[in-house]
């Protein structure tokens, strides 16, 4: 044991020295000074100061809200670059995004059902297929691997050609990947519905079905490699780092955690939670940050506040986030030093989180008037704010004292939704609103539905998070008081669980509106193309601001 500790200390020392040397090297080679210019690579010459949001009801008002004189028209070469980029990624992005939206609808309906069962256990309790213990993992897996993963890959495939200023290469591989991934999803859902589960949270799909995700994910990764090789930019923008990292992290995590026959007993629990937290931290989060780092500067027409800070945030996230998972086992039968390590890194997550917060929020800070006129910005900025809140909250309740209260309660569920919904899902909503008009060439047909969607999910989510957090804290307090019978910790949560169902229902209604609108723009796009084909007119020039 002491040997292990000594070796760990030596290792930490070594890592710190390597990190320091890296820093010295970076400073001596003026990497940081070079970097500052990197923030501008997503703008063409003279494009700064131009507001861009294809959903904005009035682009003129949005532009005026920035409070800066609008620049002259964008250089034609840059417009052409982006148009080509968007056309090249159209097919694969549509496959991933549309599939994701379908899974979102199904996953949220199951989420509401699971929620209702908590305060009304008689609902649909006659059949094993609809018992709580089946519905709950279906909700999680469909949202995690159907909605968030597919939306993340879709957004990444759209971003890459724009970031690398070259058309997407090998898009067909990604389309094949989307198909294989969807087959895996359908099989996985069927398996869980019929009780074929690995029995481990976040890893429920049987390992045979996991192979579909390995193959599908690998196919979707091919265009990344091919497009990177053909890139026409000097500098890789920060969003690209996050996409590259996420696409190497997730396959490693997924294979290590799912490989059959290796893990045992308590060690399995460690792998379980190392994986589960990393799905959020090293897969959904980098994809969402990639989108936020691109969209916020684009919409408010200004480069990221401090580009150097984003470099620090990226590597700090990679170092710390990958080690936080075991805070899910505080007080559990696992070696204490592993738990302590995870607590320390959980608190250290404040570094990348605050660095990212400063960066994203300061970029938009004195241009917040744009929120009134840009629906996309509302989604993305609110998402970025939730990232800050959820992460600081996570750092705090990784501390043993607070964790004792919140562990094993609904509070954790509220926290998980603050991250996966408040942050990841909100950012992906914003990204989908931005990218669909760009890749389809059609307009969102009913702009008011965007506001309705926003109002429903914000109201629903506020109810969800506030009430479930309070209920969870009351539940934890009741459980820690040995003089109160256990049943009190159940009864005290009931009104809050009911409120959660109300919030979840509002969110789901918002998703129905969103899905209908996605259907609407696809329909509009197909009409447009049909009209263009019959008139034989030259394709209308894509109007890119």
């Amino acid at each position, binding site marked *: 044991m002491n040997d292990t500790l000594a070796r760990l200390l030596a290792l930490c020392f070594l890592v710190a020295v390597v990190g320091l040397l890296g820093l010295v090297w970076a400073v001596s080679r003026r990497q940081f000074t070079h970097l500052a210019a990197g923030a501008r690579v997503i703008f063409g010459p003279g494009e700064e100061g131009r507001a861009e949001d294809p959903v904005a009801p009035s682009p003129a008002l949005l532009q005026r809200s920035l409070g800066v004189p609008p620049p002259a028209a964008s250089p034609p070469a840059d417009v052409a670059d982006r148009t080509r980029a968007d056309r090249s990624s159209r097919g694969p992005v549509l496959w991933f995004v549309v599939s994701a939206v379908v899974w979102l609808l199904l996953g949220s309906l199951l989420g509401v059902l699971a929620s209702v069962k908590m305060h009304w*256990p008689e609902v649909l309790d006659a059949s094993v297929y609809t018992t*709580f213990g089946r519905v709950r993992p279906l909700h999680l897996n469909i949202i995690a691997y159907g909605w968030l993963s597919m939306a993340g890959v879709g957004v990444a495939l759209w971003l890459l050609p724009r970031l690398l200023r070259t058309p997407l290469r090998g898009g067909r591989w990604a389309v094949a990947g989307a198909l294989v991934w969807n087959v895996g999803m359908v099989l996985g859902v069927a398996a869980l519905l019929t009780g074929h589960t690995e029995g481990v949270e976040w890893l429920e799909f049987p390992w045979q079905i996991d192979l579909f995700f390995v193959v599908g994910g690998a196919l979707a990764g091919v265009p990344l490699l091919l497009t990177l090789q053909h890139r026409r930019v000097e500098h890789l923008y920060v969003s690209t780092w996050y996409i590259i990292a996420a696409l190497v992290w997730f396959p490693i995590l997924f294979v290590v955690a799912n490989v059959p026959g290796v893990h045992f007993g*308590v060690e399995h629990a460690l792998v379980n939670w190392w994986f589960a937290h990393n799905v959020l931290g090293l897969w959904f989060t980098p994809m969402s940050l990639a989108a936020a780092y691109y969209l916020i500067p684009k919409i408010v027409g200004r480069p990221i506040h401090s580009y150097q800070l984003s470099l620090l945030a990226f590597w700090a996230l990679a170092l710390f986030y*990958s080690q936080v998972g075991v805070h899910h086992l505080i007080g559990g039968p696992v070696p204490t030093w592993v738990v302590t390590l995870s607590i320390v890194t959980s608190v250290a997550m404040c570094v990348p989180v605050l660095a990212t917060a400063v960066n994203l929020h300061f970029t938009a800070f004195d241009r917040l008037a744009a929120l009134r006129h840009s629906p996309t910005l509302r989604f993305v900025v609110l998402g970025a704010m939730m990232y800050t809140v959820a992460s600081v909250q996570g750092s705090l309740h990784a501390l043993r004292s607070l964790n004792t209260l919140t562990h094993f309660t609904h509070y954790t569920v509220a926290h998980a939704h603050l991250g996966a919904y408040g942050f990841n899902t909100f950012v992906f909503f914003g990204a989908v609103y931005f990218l669909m008009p760009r890749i389809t060439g059609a307009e969102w047909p009913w702009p008011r539905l965007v506001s309705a969607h926003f109002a429903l999910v914000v109201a629903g989510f506020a109810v969800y998070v506030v009430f479930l957090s309070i209920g969870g804290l009351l539940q934890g307090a009741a459980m820690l008081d040995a003089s109160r019978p256990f049943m009190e910790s159940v009864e005290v949560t009931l009104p809050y669980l009911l409120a959660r169902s109300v919030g979840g229902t509002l969110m789901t209604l918002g998703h129905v509106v969103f899905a209908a609108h996605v259907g609407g723009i696809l329909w509009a796009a197909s009409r447009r193309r049909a009209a263009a084909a019959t008139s034989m007119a030259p394709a209308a020039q894509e109007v890119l601001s």
Partner: protein
Amino acid sequence: MNAALGTAFGAVGLLALAGSLLVGAPYAQLRGEGAPAGLRPYTAEAARGREAYMALGCIYCHSQQPRDPRQAPDAERGWGRPSVPADYAYDHPHLLGTMRTGPDLFNIGARQPSRDWHLLHLYDPRAVVPGSIMPAHRFLFDVGGAAGPEDVVVNLPGGGTAVARPEALDLVAYLLSLDHTYPVAPAEGSVP
């Protein structure tokens, strides 16, 4: 490809570091752990019941990891002494759980050793635990048919009977096997 490769290698390197710390080192530390003398392997029936426990998703509301009395009053609730890694020597996969919507079950076999109680509780949780929000598992029973001589019959509070299907009997056998009241040396360096 320099910057791209650098990012990819750096990302993989840091993940490898995390993996070796959080998974690799504990793997080496825990691999030699044998089962305590008081712990018996699962019987075939209990092992099938464990599969049912997984397939029915019991884990989403029940933990199997009592905490140290210095941290939380788990022992006072009758959930048992703090568990140690050796207690899980026969557990593939682990079923530690992260929710206590219902109570911890690590010693449910000792706390509630009656098979009939468990069967009725599964059939109609609120008949034995008023206010419980556990889903009824009536689909694990046959109601209305004539019971054979071998059948295990549950007498329902409102009159009538139900016959437990094999899956219900396996599940109860598993629950009854959850008895970790044997003594163990406390885990090294355990701190609440």
